């Protein structure tokens, strides 16, 4: 019989899925604003723009509320785990995939750090686009280049993340860690040898 160990707390899962929900609403509305074919087909640019903007404003607020209402200490501990790389993490990044990993492997830590940075930059550049329409002092010719570039960076991160979480046979077992919260003890021992589940 398979034994399961807890990998992600309820707060961690709520944080992840809140982020995913807001990201997909922003992606869908952003694509309508960005792609000429969708813009011509859908129209209603003012409405789509409002949905996109206010979803973007609510995004960091929603994440903050999840953290405040949930286990913030636990989340801070998660952030610390993502921050700290030990020698095995560096060896893992250098291609030694057998280097024993903690609850997060080095690639997952990098993905989390980059995703957080992209989120911050999306919010900052999005706010600047909005404010720049209202105040010429906040209008920069490169804001739209940054926001577009972030879109491509986010798509690349998302594609890699979805591939590993849903398709890749060796790693897709991890998906249940983010849905029901647990992964098999055997899988954890193999992929995250240094992690000691409580």
């Amino acid at each position, binding site marked *: 019989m398979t034994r399961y160990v807890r990998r992600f707390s309820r707060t961690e899962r709520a944080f992840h899925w809140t982020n995913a929900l807001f990201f997909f609403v922003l992606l869908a509305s952003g694509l309508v604003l960005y792609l000429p074919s969708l813009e011509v087909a859908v129209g209603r640019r*003012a409405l789509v723009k409002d949905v996109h903007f206010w979803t973007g404003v609510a995004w960091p607020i929603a994440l903050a509320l999840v953290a405040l209402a949930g286990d913030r200490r636990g989340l801070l501990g998660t952030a610390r785990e993502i921050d700290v*790389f030990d020698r095995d993490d560096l060896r893992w990044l250098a291609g030694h995939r057998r280097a024993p990993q903690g609850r997060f492997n080095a690639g997952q830590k990098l993905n989390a750090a980059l995703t957080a940075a992209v989120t911050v930059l999306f919010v900052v550049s999005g706010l600047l686009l909005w404010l720049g329409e*209202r105040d*010429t002092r906040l209008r920069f010719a490169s804001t739209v280049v940054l926001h577009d570039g972030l879109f491509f960076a986010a798509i690349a991160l998302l594609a890699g993340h979805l591939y590993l979480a849903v398709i890749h046979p060796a790693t897709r077992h991890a998906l249940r860690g983010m849905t029901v919260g647990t992964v098999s003890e055997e899988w954890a021992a193999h992929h995250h040898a240094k992690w000691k589940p409580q």
Partner: protein
Amino acid sequence: MEREPRPLPSETPRDRLPVGRGVFLATVAGGVSSLLWGKAVWSRVSGAVAPVAETLVPVLPSSGWRIYSVADHLPTFDAASWRLTVTGLVGSPISLDYGALRALPRVEQVSAFHCVTGWTVKNVRWAGVRVADVIGPARPKAGAHALHFVSAENPYHDYLTLEQARLHDVLLAYEMDGKPLSRGHGAPLRLVIPEMYGYKNVKWLERIELVPSVEDGYWEALGYDRDAWVGRSNGYGT
């Protein structure tokens, strides 16, 4: 090396590196700094990157165009019922159908298109007619000093002085890059004034009114400059 016993895990300071925050902070700093260099770098590399990207993913904004609109639906062009009218301070108002428009002297030009939000499309091939060839037959009166361009996309409209409309590269365009103007680009007729930002380049043009002076158009009423010179208006280059 792999077989040597590893040192005890993780407790020396050198073995606990804050790489995560380093990656986060470097990415945020790089992104924020790109507000200063992003467009300059992108305009150098876009010539090589954009055609490849568009070939791989054909729905990407071709050569950098974005389609902006203000109404719920983009106007639809019907060649049978479409008319361009010239009204206002004129001796004889006129109404052109699409065939009559295409029968006017054709001019072609290649010019860049700059949006006030920061994107630029270089080397757009336009074909169309000069403003003077359209309004001339209506015999503008002496008191007319400006043109009011009214779009079929209600409530979009904008103004140019007669002097601005006489600039050598101002065009009423019905073709773009060798094809009739597409719906998103203002079919069948749009104003093109390359020296001003895109919001002055009224799409879905259906009426030109001769008026005594320039007033606020759609975007000017929201705080944008009436004289939208590229690089020296709307907060740029000032």
